[in-house]
């Protein structure tokens, strides 16, 4: 029999590290039913038993005001997992125990992982673990997940709770008036079908807290009359307390938490400050904050794009020299040889050379996340982002978007304000993702060799400008109104665990590789077929050698249909065809170009630079930056915001890209 273990905790308590350590990092990723919040499930074996670990979203309480909290609450209360593993930051008990107490009230079979014990120790905090165990009545295991400390004990505790029958007896006394109201509601609910589904006391408290979901459930099960009675009890209580019962309950819960903390926490030597305070003083400083942020970005870009040069060149050699040489020498059939060498190796090789850039970029991003720096970035940027028409929290999806727009759009869920969230999701496709990088790298190397770095950087600058423009436009028209701003926890700085950083990097990079192996591999073959055939029939692989033959192919036919529209920009049908295929995935643009020109690498660059003027090439880069999102991104916007917004995004981007490219060509025409 498999035991189900639900992993729950506040954000930033090391939940993902514990998930990875328990399951060895192997996870099935899906979505929770009905919503696009990621659901991660992993498995492990311990002493002959099977365990299934379900990672719940990071939450603060069970109040269910956000989708994340509703998912977690429903899974814990209705899914009835065998064990709920609550991860708690030991250096931050005052805040984290609120969730713990809420879970205990909901009747969860709890195991507490008291994580980040090293950090607590560093802050001079001593925790009476035995005392905490006694007060809460559940196993408490001290851990340091990043170093693998306490995981064995954690597995044991999970096993023993999974195989025990008892439910924890922890209970908060809310005072005479509230208790009487709880008893009255319990009396209404007792003996109804609801009694089997929920712990009655907990349900009564939820109703007093005015949880609309549960009021609805009572209405469904017992009818309107029961609801009226409960509302009456609540109003009665309200009068007696002279305050909202909801506030009284939340406040009491916080007070109980503080009481528990004061009983189990001993500050042996109280340090006058922590390292986090020291670093925050400089990192979030009014003057130094932004230069430091720019420096971090500078480091990240130099590492991702310059430090990887030998790897990039080695991969280039592998595809363009070694493998295609093998194909030329050993494949007899002409068309098969062309498929392998002109199609697959050429198309995929042009793309895979950028693998080191992408992997290193993800590595740095993961490291900065685990370090705790990303939340500081949101803090520093909030004021600026506000002027751009966004919120500080938008910066995290935007930075993620530099890797790939799809997870970035899912990450907008963390933005509470609905308008901020919509605007952020709709401008995210303007963030140059790593798939567009190959286009920039190719064109900047071909046309702007001496200052290609500055040209690539200019793409990011233009992207910021365009985002500001569009976001402000949206803010002033369709999404007018005040924002609620953001609420965000600042976790303490921590030395990232290498294992966790590598795992995150691998998961993110794997998506790129999977895409290269499926969508892009498929597209390359389709484009190859469309290159060797045309409206007149089979042309043959000669098309890749002879441009006049290529002009008879389907690729050319499609590009030519679009050419009149793009002629003012100075682009021919091959560039047009590349842009059409870029709709599948932006990576395909470069692959299509190398197929359409029958060349890759340096030869392709030479061909391009003889055909276009620098400003026309720059216009192409700007167009690729801003034109339609790729299909997976459109799908993500559709599932997050709905079809209407997805269509709106596609339309505004097409118009924007065309106008910007025209602008670049017109301005460039004055110079060249």
């Amino acid at each position, binding site marked *: 029999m498999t035991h189900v273990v639900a992993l729950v905790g506040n954000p930033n308590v090391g939940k993902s590290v514990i998930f990875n350590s328990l399951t060895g990092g192997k996870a099935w990723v899906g979505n929770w039913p009905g919503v696009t919040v990621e659901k991660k499930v992993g498995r492990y074996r311990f002493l002959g038993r099977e365990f299934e670990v379900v990672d719940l979203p990071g939450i603060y309480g069970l109040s269910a005001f956000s989708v994340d909290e509703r998912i977690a609450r429903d899974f814990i209360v209705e899914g009835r997992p065998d064990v709920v593993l609550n991860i708690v930051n030991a250096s931050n008990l005052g805040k984290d125990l609120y969730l713990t107490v809420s879970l205990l009230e909901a009747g969860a079979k709890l195991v507490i992982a008291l994580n980040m014990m090293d950090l607590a120790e560093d802050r001079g905090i001593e925790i009476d673990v035995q005392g905490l165990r006694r007060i809460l009545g559940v196993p408490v295991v001290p851990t340091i997940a990043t170093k693998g400390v306490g995981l064995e004990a954690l597995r044991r505790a999970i096993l023993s709770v999974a195989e025990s029958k008892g439910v924890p007896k922890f209970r908060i006394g809310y005072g005479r008036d509230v208790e009487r109201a709880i008893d009255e509601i319990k009396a209404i609910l007792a003996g109804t079908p609801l009694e089997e589904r929920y712990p009655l006391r907990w349900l009564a408290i939820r109703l007093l807290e005015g949880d609309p979901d549960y009021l609805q459930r009572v209405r469904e099960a017992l009818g309107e009359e029961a609801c009226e009675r409960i509302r009456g009890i609540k109003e009665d209580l309200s009068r007696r307390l002279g305050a909202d019962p909801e506030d009284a309950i939340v406040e009491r819960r916080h007070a109980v938490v503080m009481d528990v903390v004061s009983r189990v926490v001993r500050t042996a*030597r109280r340090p006058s*400050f922590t390292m986090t305070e020291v670093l925050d003083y*400089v990192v979030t400083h009014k003057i130094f904050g932004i230069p430091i942020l720019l420096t971090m970005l*500078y480091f990240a870009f*130099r590492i991702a794009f310059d430090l990887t040069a030998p790897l990039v*060149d*080695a991969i280039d050699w592998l595809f363009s020299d070694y493998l295609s040489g093998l194909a030329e020498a050993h494949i007899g059939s002409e068309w098969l040889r062309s498929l392998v060498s002109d199609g697959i190796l050429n198309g995929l090789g042009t793309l895979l050379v950028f693998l080191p850039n992408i992997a290193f970029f993800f590595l740095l991003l993961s490291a900065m996340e685990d370090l705790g720096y990303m939340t500081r970035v949101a803090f520093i940027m909030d004021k600026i982002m506000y002027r751009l028409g966004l919120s500080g929290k938008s910066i995290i999806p935007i930075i993620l978007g530099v890797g790939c727009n799809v997870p970035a759009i899912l990450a907008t869920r963390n933005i509470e304000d609905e308008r901020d969230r919509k605007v952020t999701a709709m401008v995210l496709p303007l963030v140059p993702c790593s798939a567009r990088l190959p286009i920039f790298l190719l064109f900047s190397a071909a046309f702007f060799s001496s200052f290609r*770095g500055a040209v690539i950087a200019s793409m990011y600058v233009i992207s910021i400008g365009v985002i500001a423009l569009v976001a402000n436009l949206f803010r002033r028209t369709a999404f007018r109104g005040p924002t609620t701003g953001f609420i965000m926890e600042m976790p303490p700085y921590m030395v990232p665990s290498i294992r966790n950083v590598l795992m995150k990097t691998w998961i993110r990079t794997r998506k790129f590789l999977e895409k290269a192996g499926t969508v892009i591999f498929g597209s390359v073959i389709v484009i190859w077929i469309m290159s060797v055939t045309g409206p007149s029939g089979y042309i043959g692989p000669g098309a890749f050698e002879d441009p006049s033959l290529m002009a008879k192919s389907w690729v050319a036919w499609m590009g030519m249909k679009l050419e009149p529209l793009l002629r003012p920009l100075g682009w021919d049908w091959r560039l047009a065809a590349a842009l059409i295929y870029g709709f599948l995935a932006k990576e395909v643009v470069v692959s299509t170009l190398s197929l359409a020109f029958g060349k890759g690498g340096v030869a392709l660059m030479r061909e391009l630079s003889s055909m276009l003027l620098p400003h026309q090439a720059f216009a192409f880069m700007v167009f690729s930056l801003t034109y339609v999102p790729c299909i997976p991104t459109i799908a993500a916007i559709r599932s997050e915001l709905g079809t209407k917004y997805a269509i709106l995004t596609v339309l505004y981007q097409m118009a924007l890209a065309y106008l910007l490219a025209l602008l670049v060509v017109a301005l460039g025409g004055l110079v060249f």
Partner: protein
Amino acid sequence: MRLRSILATLLGVAYLTLALTSLLNWAADRWGGGPVLGSLGPLPAPSSLGLFIPLFTVGILYASSYYYWRSGPRLEFHAILLVASILSLSLSILELLLGFAEFLDHLVKVGLFGSAGGFDPGVFAELEIPLGLLSIPILRVSLRELRSLRGS
């Protein structure tokens, strides 16, 4: 304490000068022909827009530490020195690694592609590298100082 402050301020001035040189050289290279300052003593002068960012950041941190030493509490002074020295040391380690990467890239190009291109060992002598090493004592002292401040 006094000596440390002087060293940090001097480093600040050095980094800011280097940042300005880098920016001017880059601009002159782009629009006005040759670089303004070809070399600083025996070492080549930087000429890059990107490099201006970390040089300026480290420079402004070190230079403003003087202000904190004069007026602010000691904690802030050491906090600034800590971050400045971490950044400057990271910069010199990065530059060293980039030098190695360039060398490896050269080997790849010659060995695999058979191209002739040369490798300039000057990349190992860029000014940021020795300057970053000067930050090591500052890093060590500020860490020690912060630790002793905490204990008290």
